């Protein structure tokens, strides 16, 4: 590992102007994400975890602090970053393949070399044969896999995911967690995942950032020292349970998590 992390966030602040004054969404948030590392953020609703992701994606402006990606200060949307949103956000008039190559078209990169890569990604997520289908013909889980392909098609070093499986049913969600682990291990991307599921965070991550709300601050960063590849047998493992309990205890007895 080099001294330069993939993402370095230092003293990040975000305040919104709102009716009746300013709302401090994030205060003094600092963390690093190493190259190839899988880092999750958990926290109660309104703790600003999605705001961090939107700032990293260049969609929302920060109020203060510094962000560096690969050692360079982040100014707006970066080619080094791919994003998966909470909903798939596929364009219904484009086929699966056309949705996947959208970033290539928008960035005016040549389509020919991207084609192989797009088809490879579609194969990687198990959607071979669906290239010419339209989003309306796919299930929610399949749509979200298309969104993952779209985020990876330009081969960004960093993948940002904002509660990507929140809208899926429990079974599909577990399946998608395994898929994501596999994709991550095969592609060796740096992944930054926002989730409200402690189980998902512990299962997938190298480190879990635990946040508190109003203003959003980092409570603790928990390293998850469990062997890879992880399977769902791990859920009944004592160490897994200890990590989950430790994180859940951060929020006291309040039922803030589903």
């Amino acid at each position, binding site marked *: 590992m080099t001294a330069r992390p993939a993402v370095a966030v230092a003293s990040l602040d975000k305040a919104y102007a709102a009716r009746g004054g300013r709302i401090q969404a994030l205060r003094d948030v600092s963390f690093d994400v190493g190259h190839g590392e899988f880092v999750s953020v958990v926290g109660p609703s309104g703790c600003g975890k999605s705001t961090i992701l*939107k700032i990293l*994606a*260049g*969609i929302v402006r920060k109020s203060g602090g510094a962000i560096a990606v690969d050692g360079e200060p982040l100014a*707006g*949307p970066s*080619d080094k*970053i791919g*994003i998966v*949103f909470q*909903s798939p*956000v596929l*364009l*219904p*008039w484009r086929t699966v393949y056309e949705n996947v190559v*959208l*970033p290539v*078209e*928008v*960035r005016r990169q040549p389509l020919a070399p991207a084609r192989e890569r797009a088809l490879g990604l579609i194969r990687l997520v198990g959607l071979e044969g669906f290239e010419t*289908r*339209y989003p*309306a*013909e*796919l*299930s*929610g889980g*399949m749509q979200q896999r298309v969104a993952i392909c779209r985020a990876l098609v330009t081969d960004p070093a960093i993948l940002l995911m904002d509660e990507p499986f929140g809208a899926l049913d429990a079974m599909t969600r577990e399946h998608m967690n395994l898929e994501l682990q596999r994709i991550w291990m095969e592609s060796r991307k740096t992944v930054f995942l926002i989730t409200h599921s402690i189980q998902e965070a512990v299962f997938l991550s190298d480190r879990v950032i635990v946040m508190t709300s109003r203003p959003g601050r980092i409570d603790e960063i928990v390293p998850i020292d469990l062997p890879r590849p992880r399977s769902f047998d791990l859920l009944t493992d004592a160490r897994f349970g200890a990590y989950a309990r430790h994180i859940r205890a951060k929020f006291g007895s309040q039922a803030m998590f589903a």
Partner: protein
Amino acid sequence: MATRDDDADESLEPQGWTRRDVAISAAGLAVFLGAWELAVRALDVPAVVLPPPSSVLTSLVSIIRSGAVFWHLGVTLTEILAGFAVGASAAFVLGALIAQFRIVDRLLYPYIVAFQAVPKVAIAPLLVIWFGFGLESKILMTAVIAFFPILVNTVVGLRTVEQDRIDLMVALKASRWQVFRYVRLPTALPFIFAGLDVGIVLSVIGAIVGEFVGANAGLGYLLLVYNNDLRIAAMFALLIILAALGIILHGVVQFVQRRVMFWSAPRAGSGGP
């Protein structure tokens, strides 16, 4: 058991017309026309006031047989299509500019909305003075009357875009034009087509009103001629032709909409949610 089967049929074909539905609809029309025919004959209503459906039909057949109506139909159709094309294009371009640029919105939109309060029919005589008795004044009348619904729908449609889609494009460093082309325009199409659908029907009105005010050809002109001659049955026949024209034009817009917006049509054998 029978109820259950009926329910199942209904869920399979929620909007479809069964043969029975068509029969009910046709029977309703037949009863209406029959009552009209009987009432006119029984009450001895003069044909210059209200002709019976039978003489309207005779009139329609003879108008079509003589072929004279087709020249006028062609003139009116030209006015409708040219006026609709001009009005729709202007509405789309202006609507896109208003939706995209705040300065254009503030500069023009209030006045366009205020202009909409002017009854367009009232400016028809002006248009004849400015552009003469030929096609131009009718095309402009049609364009002006079709313009507004298409403009408003374009503006609303282009602004009704899910924030997620915009965020996606922003994260990809898309230009304003790319956001328009890749996301805003396709998202706005259902609205724009709704506007076009209203616009095409209004275009028929525009052309006829334009011809009423001053013309020497067209179905509107022909209506006035028949009116002067008290050929009331022939006027009814023209109304039927105009209604058919409106329905066909509406159908064409719907057909184009289904072709352009292929993705919003329900797909057979779709894979569920």
